[in-house]
């Protein structure tokens, strides 16, 4: 999926034209405004896991909504970098903890925002809810389906708010695309969605010891590399499917209003032999009603960037890199042909693995948090979405406004990604 700048501009204009013809989305809860306000200040929160993504969440936390009382991480470097973010954002210093259970015992907090490695999600999230805390857990929901179910059941039993952090759900671009394009039937019948997240880098980060003799083995990581590069090891990670695929598949679940029923896939460790998770995956998900989504993620070519494309009988919707939306009517002129253009220094580290503080082993610019390329059309700041995600989480706690991605929705994509990893493996040889 590569379009010339002219074609992209046309697609953006088409998208905006349709948006202009539909009424604005009603403000959340506007109908309930007559009931009066609810007393209460900012939600008292603690952060568990302030690595790259945890710090991206911290950086997007508004003091008006959340009062960050404590931060917890087993890596002292992460705590130090988190302090810098608090200071830069003129927020009061937060108390440091290494053990999350100790933080829950000692701090008067109402909620936890957590972004530890995937394998720890179910234990920590469930433990927090058992301790009476609301939880915003970074995606993917959990390492296995049983973990997802435990988190969902704990949320139901304790009555605590559990939100899984998929920032696309809070991106105005996606909200507009769903309301004005998908739900309005502009695309006609959509049988196919194509998802791609292509990069040309090794996904590995530099390992820098936070202190002489630092040993993370007591937390289950035999070496520092396992802690820093946990995404590359199957013990802690579900690889590309979880870190990238679940974001996009969740959008298909939302737009298709259903969950996939079948999956097939291939892939493997083709380029980088320093890991346990695949560096190339090619998967197909079958939805009810004859609808299909394909997801590909390669670590050897970034020409395609990352996007979600919905192909309907009347039109095609493209959501590119979380910052642009394009719409093309079937049969309408599309400007000049596809242009093969130099991509220059392509982005490498994206959404799910924010690089602030942890130096990736590439020359990648830090994303998210970095401002997207300015321009017209459907461009939005990804950071706005993360900020809204946290604000909505706090609002759900204070006044009960609905979540965009609670446990049931998050489980749909998590289950599909976990099952996809189970089927990805050696294919049948054609010669036998």
């Amino acid at each position, binding site marked *: 999926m590569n379009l010339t700048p002219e074609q992209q501009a046309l697609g953006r204009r088409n998208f905006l034209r349709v948006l202009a013809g539909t009424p604005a989305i009603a*403000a959340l809860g506007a109908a309930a405004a007559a009931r009066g*306000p609810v*007393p209460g200040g*900012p939600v008292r929160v603690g952060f568990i896991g302030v690595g790259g993504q945890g710090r991206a969440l911290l950086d997007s936390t508004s003091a008006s909504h959340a009062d960050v009382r404590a931060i917890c991480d087993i890596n002292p470097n992460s705590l130090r970098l988190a302090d810098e973010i608090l200071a830069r954002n003129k927020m009061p210093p937060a108390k440091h903890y290494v053990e999350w259970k100790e933080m829950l015992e000692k701090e008067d907090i109402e909620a936890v925002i957590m972004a530890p490695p995937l394998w720890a999600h179910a234990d920590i999230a469930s433990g927090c809810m058992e301790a009476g805390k609301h939880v915003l857990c970074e995606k993917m929901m959990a390492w296995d389906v049983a973990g997802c179910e435990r988190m969902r059941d704990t949320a139901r039993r304790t009555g605590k708010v559990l939100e899984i952090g998929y920032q696309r759900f809070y991106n105005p671009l996606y909200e507009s695309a769903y309301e004005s394009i998908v739900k309005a039937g502009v695309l006609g019948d959509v049988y196919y969605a194509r998802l791609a997240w292509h990069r040309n880098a090794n996904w590995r980060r530099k390992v820098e010891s936070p202190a002489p003799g630092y040993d993370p083995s007591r937390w289950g990581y035999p070496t520092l590399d396992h802690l820093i590069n946990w995404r590359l090891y199957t013990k802690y990670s579900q690889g590309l499917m979880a870190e990238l695929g679940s974001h996009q598949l969740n959008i298909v679940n939302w737009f298709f209003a259903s969950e996939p029923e079948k999956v097939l896939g291939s892939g493997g460790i083709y380029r980088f032999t320093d890991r346990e998770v695949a560096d190339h995956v090619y998967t197909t998900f079958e939805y009810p009603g004859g609808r299909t989504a394909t997801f590909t993620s390669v670590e050897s070519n970034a020409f395609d960037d990352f996007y979600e494309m919905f192909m309907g009988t009347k039109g095609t919707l493209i959501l590119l890199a979380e910052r642009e939306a394009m719409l093309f009517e079937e049969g309408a002129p599309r400007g000049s042909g596809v242009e093969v253009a130099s991509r220059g220094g392509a982005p490498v580290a994206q959404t799910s693995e924010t690089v602030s503080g942890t130096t990736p082993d590439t020359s990648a610019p830090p994303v998210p948090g970095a401002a997207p390329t300015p321009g017209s059309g459907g461009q939005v700041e990804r950071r706005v979405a993360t900020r809204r995600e946290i604000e909505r989480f706090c*609002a759900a706690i*204070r006044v009960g406004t609905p979540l965009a991605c609670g446990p049931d929705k998050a489980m749909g994509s998590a289950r599909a990604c976990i099952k996809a990893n189970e089927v990805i493996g050696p294919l049948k040889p054609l010669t036998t």
Partner: protein
Amino acid sequence: MRGDYSGISGRQQFALIVLRTAIGWHFLYEGYVKLIGPMWTRGGVPVQPFSSAGYLRGATGPLADVFHAMAASPWISTLDIAVALTLFAAGLLLLLGLFTQFGCVLAAALLAMFYISAIPLSGVAEPRTEGAYLVVNKNLIELAAVIVLFTFRTGLIAGLDRWWISRRAPAHQNEAAA
């Protein structure tokens, strides 16, 4: 009923009580939201606790210097609570029709202060106002309405003043008979 209301019809008396109730609720609720501290709208938007500092800093008119000094004073938070409590008390008295005349005085004093601190002289719509005003604004109109209430002694038409006085009346009559 004490007082001579022979010249006022029942409808007119009812209208006066409606006016008093509306003004009372307005004051009561203004005081309440200023007293409860930080809060959230039902739509999920946080609202900062009340502080009169910004309002006072922006004050204009003949007493502007006084209001500016109040904004800068160390006891501004105490003043905030006092204003909120006074609003609440005035509202409660007007709603209940208890010590109604005193409630009217409280309300009138607050409204006069609010009016003097920002007399509309520009004649065009200002930020945070929903209309254009020249000299007369809603504070002044509400002040005039409170003066009307004060003049008519509406506590004797309906409210706890009437009940309280009617309880005291037989005692006075007995004293007079003795």
